[in-house]
């Protein structure tokens, strides 16, 4: 009986030969993760249950990345709760001091998640790891606590929508544009409870960094996971960094899908998501003049090396508009170091941008770049909900690193082509 990649992983991890959408399985997980916002509740639930030891100290990852470096006393207390728990349980995947990175940039980079894994994370963007061919999905703190106690999670086997990306990518169109376009097409609940499987010749050619960006935003369409079948690019990426053995699962040719959606990518232009839902997409060319106060380049969506290189290519020898705060934050320490080696940090600072340490800070209006009433940001992050980056009367336009960097120079939303005009 044929299965798609999501069904194959869920079947394998629940000890079954075959699973069907709608079926309920209790599966063995390979990793459970939580951050400084979600772990405190999970730890509280864990303790309240009477449990004293996590099921496997090598398979619980705690990444305090949201309000760190601690933004205030309350955040410091929360971070301390994680630190104490991690030390008490002797967790091997706790990241502190200079080791911390944005969780969904950090864990794939460090080879903690590999193809074929089943991962739950108390963070909605856990779906990022689907790019590696791992079934990874966001859960709440109680589900994470259950995972920490038992090494298990329950799943309703979801239906899968297959997306096929064909055609030639236009200049400055990145995987961020593809995923925004997709969300604009199907809506913020277009994949509710379902898996999004990204396929086609365009996906085959994407780098790992670019694929991680696409899978990252599956949740913005309501998706349970955003999967890409592992190929040479995937294996090239995991070789040398994988912490444990991987297993390649791929969809059968005759696998069943809830539906198949095809896109001709040659029709896709650089795009933004207008306030205040990711589905409100518009090509930059049809946007009109939108002045910006802040340009944010980074996050679990677009804080990887490839993103920084694109931003650097555009900012090189140029100045950030005097009315714009351009904040660039790398995903991890490794990315930070690589940017340092390549001279990107000097380039950014000379251009007038602000280069920060890895943190989720501004993406969720936490700290390190909050918007005032009436202010507008163009951002490579993943959500533009009301008040997401600050005041409820501020607004956020989601965009690719190329558009965010060009907009920082222009002082309005535009593409690198507009810099030539």
């Amino acid at each position, binding site marked *: 009986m044929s299965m798609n990649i999501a069904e194959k992983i869920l079947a394998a991890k629940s000890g079954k030969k075959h699973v069907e959408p709608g079926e309920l399985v209790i599966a063995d997980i390979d990793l459970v993760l939580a951050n400084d916002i979600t772990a405190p509740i999970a730890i509280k639930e864990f303790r309240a249950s009477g449990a004293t030891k996590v099921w496997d100290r090598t398979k619980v990852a705690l990444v305090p990345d949201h309000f760190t470096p601690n933004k205030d006393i*309350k955040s410091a207390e*929360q971070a301390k709760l994680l630190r104490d728990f991690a030390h008490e349980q002797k967790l091997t995947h706790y990241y502190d001091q200079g080791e911390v990175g944005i969780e969904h940039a950090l864990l794939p980079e460090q080879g903690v998640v590999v193809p074929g894994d089943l991962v739950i994370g108390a963070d909605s963007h856990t779906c990022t790891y689907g790019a590696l061919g791992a079934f990874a999905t966001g859960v*709440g703190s*109680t589900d994470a606590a259950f995972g920490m106690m038992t090494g298990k999670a329950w799943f309703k086997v979801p239906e899968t929508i297959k997306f096929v990306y064909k055609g030639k990518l236009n200049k400055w169109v990145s995987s961020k544009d593809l995923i925004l376009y997709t969300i604009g097409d199907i809506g913020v*609940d277009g994949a509710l409870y379902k898996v999004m499987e990204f396929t086609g010749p365009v996906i085959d050619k994407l780098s790992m960094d670019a694929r991680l960006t696409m899978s990252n935003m599956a949740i913005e369409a*309501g998706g349970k996971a955003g999967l890409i079948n592992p190929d040479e690019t995937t294996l090239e990426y995991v070789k040398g960094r994988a912490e444990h053995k991987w297993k390649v699962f791929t969809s059968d040719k005759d696998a069943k899908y809830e539906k198949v959606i095809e896109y001709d990518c040659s029709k896709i232009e650089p795009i933004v998501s207008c306030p205040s839902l990711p589905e409100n997409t518009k090509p930059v060319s049809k946007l009109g003049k939108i002045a910006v106060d802040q340009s944010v380049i980074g996050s679990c969506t677009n804080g990887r090396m490839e993103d920084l290189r694109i931003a650097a290519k555009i900012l090189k020898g140029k100045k950030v508009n005097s009315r714009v705060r351009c904040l660039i934050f790398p995903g991890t320490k490794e990315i930070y170091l690589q940017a340092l080696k390549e001279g990107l940090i000097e380039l950014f600072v000379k251009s007038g941008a602000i280069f920060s340490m890895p943190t989720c800070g501004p993406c969720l209006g936490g700290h390190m770049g909050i918007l005032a009433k009436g202010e507008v940001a163009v951002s490579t992050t993943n959500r533009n909900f009301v008040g997401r980056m600050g005041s409820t009367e501020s607004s956020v336009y989601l965009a690719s690193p190329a558009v965010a960097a060009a907009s920082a120079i222009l002082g309005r939303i535009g593409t690198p082509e507009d810099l030539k005009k």
Partner: protein
Amino acid sequence: MLLKGKVWKFGNDIDTDLIIPARYLNTSDPAELAKHCMEDADKTWAGKVQKGDIITAGKNFGCGSSREHAPVAIKAAGVSCVIAKDFARIFYRNSFNIGLPIFESEEASAKIAQEDVVEIDADKGVIRNITKNETYKVKPIPPFMQELVEAGGLIAYGKTKYKIK
């Protein structure tokens, strides 16, 4: 389980940032979270909501973040249950896990108005709109979710099924 209360009506795609803005997530204290519940949708709501009140909404309620603080804040604000056309996946799981009753009903979501008084018979799966004298059907809860509820939540269920260290 019988729940009765006055309705606060919200729209489609109510996201978790509206339910509890991230700037308040430096605590997980339910009472503290309740003070800011729905703040970015309606600044005065947390001061107006009464114990037992009911939230109704359109599609995709609770979309966005995985923060369990969202259903926790709603529950701690005194809300007895949430009725929506449908719920975002993680919010749906979280609500069951923390014991916030939620009900899916397209009909109820469309027909119930602000300040209507409604009564929900969870066992029979029926919502009665006392103000309008109408009844609506609730989409049945999947059997496994029912099992979780009966066990007293996910953690209690886990303790009965698995050996905990």
